[in-house]
């Protein structure tokens, strides 16, 4: 694997000043290397989607942003809008949760898949031929006639495949996937993920996969970052995360997920997930943590290296975890 394709350093995001001013992300750092699939897992309010959108510069106006987002050596946050548009077209592609909400319903599928190519100067005929190949690659029957159809003629799963084809058209180096299968049925999800993984591996793309589903992230990602209340609390290779979670929140999430192959009934984590704005001083998870001590409520743990993992927990090194 090559050097970092995406390098987010100490990213902090705060919504615009005024009544609504509130922090969303606090010093989020993460990396995706060339050809690597990285999961970003968290519950509602964790800031996982904002992190993902920030890479494309998709934040509300006047949001104050700190830190750096480096893609292929270029700092995205320092660039003007025109550069960002070009960048979104060529280098990075994004797939969203709801395919129907992210495609123009009155335009044909062919227009959608080819628009990036044509904007990049590819002649129409060539772009169309390429689109046909792409639709075939994502498993759409009769791609030639599919190009002439409208989004409403496709089911949710088929439309998400079209979105993937559109995202791959410009041969980006980095794919951002924001809960791309959450709106889909289980069996459709499985098929879409299979196609996505296959194409990603074949093209050597890096991927940041945002999801609330640890099991899904584990199924397709090499490494996983776990977010809680606007911060990264743990980062590990997938295998390690499942066999030996270092942060009590990760352990809690794993215990809460119902599993097919386990006799252990799922166990809830008391309380509810917080957003950064609601988080108290000290460790944001302390109130829900069965291992929390007084110092956890006073000092905020930094993300530190522990074996092969990065963990933000004051008690991470103690044996209580095992």
């Amino acid at each position, binding site marked *: 694997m090559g050097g970092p394709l995406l390098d987010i350093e100490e990213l902090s995001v705060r*919504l*615009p000043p*005024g*009544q*609504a001013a509130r922090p969303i992300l606090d010093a989020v750092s993460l990396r995706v290397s060339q050809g690597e699939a990285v999961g970003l897992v968290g519950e*509602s*309010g964790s*800031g996982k*989607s*904002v992190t993902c*959108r920030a890479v494309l510069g998709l934040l*509300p106006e006047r949001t104050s942003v700190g830190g750096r987002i480096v893609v292929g050596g270029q700092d995205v946050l320092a660039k003007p809008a025109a550069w960002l548009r070009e960048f979104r077209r060529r280098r990075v592609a994004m797939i969203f949760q709801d395919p129907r909400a992210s495609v123009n319903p009155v335009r044909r599928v062919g227009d959608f898949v080819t628009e990036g190519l044509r904007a990049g100067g590819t002649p129409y005929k060539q772009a169309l031929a390429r689109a046909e190949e792409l639709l075939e690659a994502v498993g759409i029957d009769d791609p030639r006639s599919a190009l002439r159809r409208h989004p409403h003629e496709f089911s949710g799963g088929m439309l998400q495949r079209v979105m993937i084809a559109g995202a791959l058209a410009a041969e980006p180096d980095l794919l951002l996937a924001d809960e791309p299968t959450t709106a889909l049925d289980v069996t459709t999800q499985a098929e879409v993920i299979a196609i996505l993984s296959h194409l990603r591996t074949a093209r050597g793309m890096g991927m940041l996969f945002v999801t609330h589903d640890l099991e899904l992230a584990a199924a397709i990602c090499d490494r996983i970052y776990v977010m809680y209340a606007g911060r990264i609390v743990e980062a590990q290779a997938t295998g390690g995360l499942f066999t030996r979670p270092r942060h009590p929140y990760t352990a809690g999430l794993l215990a809460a997920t119902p599993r097919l192959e386990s006799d252990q009934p799922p166990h809830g984590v008391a309380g509810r997930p917080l957003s950064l704005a609601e988080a108290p001083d000290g460790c944001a998870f302390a109130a829900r943590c069965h291992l929390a001590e007084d110092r956890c409520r006073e000092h905020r743990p930094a993300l530190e290296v522990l074996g092969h993992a990065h963990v933000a927990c004051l008690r991470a090194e103690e044996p209580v975890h095992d």
Partner: protein
Amino acid sequence: MTAVTLHRRYRLPADNLTVAGVAVLAVLVAVAILAPLVAPHDPLAIDFSAALSGPSSDHLLGADQSGRDVLSRLIFGARAGLLGPLLVVTLSTVAGTLLGVLAAWCGGVVDAVLSRGMDFVFAFPALLLAITLVAMFGPGLSAPVVAMSIAYTPYVGRLARGVAMREMSRPYIHAYRVQGWSGWTICLRHLVPNVLPLIFAQSAINFGYALMDLAALSFLGFGTQPPVPDWGAMINEGASALLQGAMLPALAPGAAVVITVVAFSTVGEGIADRVARRQR
């Protein structure tokens, strides 16, 4: 989710506008109620010596052709100007909500009949209806108010039907059915109260439009009859003064209409925003 929250939070500054709109309306209502105390002159008092005089310390906005004080007529005009639309909006809101919710709740034939009926009224020009009624019952406030109430009912009705349909598809309505409540109880106690806020928002906006339509009728001579002060009639009377170089007799009531309409629209939008924000 997150994106929605971002968007929602982002719209807050609009609230200041709403507050300004409410303030303007409060002043207007106060002025209308306290007209005899606030107005510097009798709005009907004729003083030919002051005819078409420009602004002076005695007549702040000047006087019209008959030498009546423009400011006083404006202040008294606010009474008819606000009372007419108030009646129109009240009547059309009650009728529209009733018909719209009924159409949504009953569905089927009832819905088809009511919806087509509303479409029919919708397609009929409001001013033509008003002029027809005036021709039948004579000019004054009542015929135009009745006509406008009828004309505005489908606007409210369509909205009420749409909102009611959306609310009815929400599981809280189903939950009450499963609990064993009768349809009418659910409709009156849970559906209607959840439909009303958006209707009120629309009605506030309608208030402005109704004011404009009634002023237009007065302008054409079908509404409030002279010499009773009325903004629309004042614009009409002032129009000839324009040729003689006096702007204020026509411009002042025109400005009053515009300010009032804008204020009502702003408040209506504000309510709608607030309702949308409270939805979740």
